[in-house]
């Protein structure tokens, strides 16, 4: 009886928590089909906000800019984050280990206003001393995003590297493969799911960032969150609801595909070795 009560309390909280997470998003999506400009009054079904969304040139070019930055940031962050994760898990003791591990965990919690301000000051100093970057924009945002995204990639990849069976790598090296070759032929293929997960995480983090991009961007370079923010600051606008609906649908679709692939991989993995967890 006590057990039943205990279980049901946390389960009830889980359901309440999920409703709390999803009801606001559902409302957002529902009102994107409202024909009235007022978001709180229902005035009939309409898709006019979607039409207006796709006519907004400023917004569309910001989307394109954000997608490019996110693609390059995620790719670079996977390279740097994977190297950092490899160093942290495979090199046992070396000078600078504590420093590297601090520089990996600190960006995860660092308030964005601090990161943004500090990077802007760096770019200003660099421009004064070496003359680069003369203009702030896509490249400076790319560097800023790569830096904080690599920390997230390092965490995702290092948790996979730690649970990896070291004996496979050792066997390859015993058979005469160089560490370099072992890394590319053994380690990389085994950790590919973690690399994909890290890349996707970095991509969404970069797409989502407003504060850091606002600090390190220059005139003329506006990312999607910057455009959305300046519109949202003035109040509720159904066009943003339409945009939100499209973003939520796209993310849900990717999450569903990821879930399907993971479940299939899990089933495949479980068949030959029924005893592993």
């Amino acid at each position, binding site marked *: 009886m*006590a057990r039943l009560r*205990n*279980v049901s*309390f*946390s389960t009830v909280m*889980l359901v*309440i*928590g*999920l409703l709390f*997470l*999803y009801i*606001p*998003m559902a*409302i*957002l999506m529902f009102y994107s089909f409202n024909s009235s400009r007022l978001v*709180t009054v229902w005035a009939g079904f309409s898709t006019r906000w979607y039409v207006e969304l796709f006519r907004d040139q400023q917004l569309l070019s910001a989307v394109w800019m954000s997608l490019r930055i996110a693609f390059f940031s995620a790719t670079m962050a996977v*390279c*740097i984050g994977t190297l*950092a994760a490899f*160093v*942290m*898990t495979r090199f046992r003791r070396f000078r*600078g280990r504590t420093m590297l*591990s601090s*520089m990996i*965990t*600190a960006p*995860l*919690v*660092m*308030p964005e*206003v*601090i*990161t943004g301000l*500090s*990077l802007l*000051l*760096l770019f200003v100093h660099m421009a004064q001393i070496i003359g680069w970057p003369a203009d702030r924009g896509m490249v400076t945002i790319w560097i800023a995003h*790569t*830096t904080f995204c*690599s920390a997230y990639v*390092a965490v995702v990849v290092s*948790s996979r590297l*730690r649970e990896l069976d070291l004996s496979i790598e050792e066997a390859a090296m015993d058979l005469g493969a160089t560490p370099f070759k072992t890394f590319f032929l053994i380690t990389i293929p085994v950790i590919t799911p973690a690399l994909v997960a890290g890349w996707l995480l970095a991509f969404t983090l970069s797409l*989502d960032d407003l*504060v850091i991009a*606002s600090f390190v961007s220059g005139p003329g370079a506006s990312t999607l969150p910057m455009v959305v923010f300046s519109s*949202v*600051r003035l109040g*509720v606008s159904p066009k*943003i609801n339409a*945009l*939100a609906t499209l*973003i939520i649908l796209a*993310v849900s679709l*990717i*999450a569903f595909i*990821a*879930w399907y692939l993971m*479940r299939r991989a899990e089933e495949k993995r479980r068949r030959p070795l029924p005893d592993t967890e």
Partner: protein
Amino acid sequence: MMGQGGILARLRRWLPNGRVLVFGIPFIWLLLFFLLPFALVLKISFSSAVISIPPYQPVFSYVNETLSIVLNMGNYLFLASDSLYVAAYIGSLQIALISTLLCLLLGYPMAYAMARAPLHWQLVLLLLIMLPSWTSFLIRVYAWMGILSNQGLLNNLLLWLGVIKEPLRLMNTNIAVVIGIVYAYLPFMILPLYANLVKMDPSLLEAASDLGSRKVNTFWRITLPLSRGGIIAGSMLVFIPAVGEFVIPELLGGPNTLMIGKVLWEEFFNNRDWPVASALAVIMLALLIVPIILFHRSQAKEMEKNG
């Protein structure tokens, strides 16, 4: 032949070997783009604002074979003397603390239920918790603007139910900011808690129950202490960014909401006072250094445990 081998050997000595390269690339990148910038923030916090590009006085200057270093303490004295800034720091810490506690109270039972759920459900629940954080942070905060406003959905619902007679004033208050932070950061509380609870050895709980411990007792004496690492990691993942939060107080808070992230943003973008903004950042970092070390320790412990 000999000569060629000698050249190669000499070249190899000069070229960085693979190990150094693997270590060096991430190390130098993070040193240059993460650590060095903080030193520059510290430097500029001792400068004074001028109308120029960039808008601050140089701290170091070298004229007539004299290196002069001018450290202006004025920014810090100014921040200490103006009660607005002190109130903003206290307000940020308060709001972040309340939000973190609420996240923990809501997130812990959720993580607990997830860790006890059947295995095939766990992956689905995990995706459901993470999915909102993969959409847009800005848009999720925006969603509450329509819900909390005076003619918003929550007030309309409560009026219709007859719970209240007049609309509640929620939007542009600290309550709205707390709701926004709890909503936006809840997944970051749940994930480390879930990761911790799911690894807990069930035999410990069985042993406790075999020895006659009641469920509630077992929870307080075994489950909760063992999940300390998850609680610390989750709480720090919410608390530290929440202290410096800008978007949520800007969109949901009102003129009475004093939070340091918003004040820093206004000093930087509206007043163009980079030195004062830097001093604000330095003090914020000094306040957060203990929580950041706590977070780092819990992460490092987690890494050692699995390694």
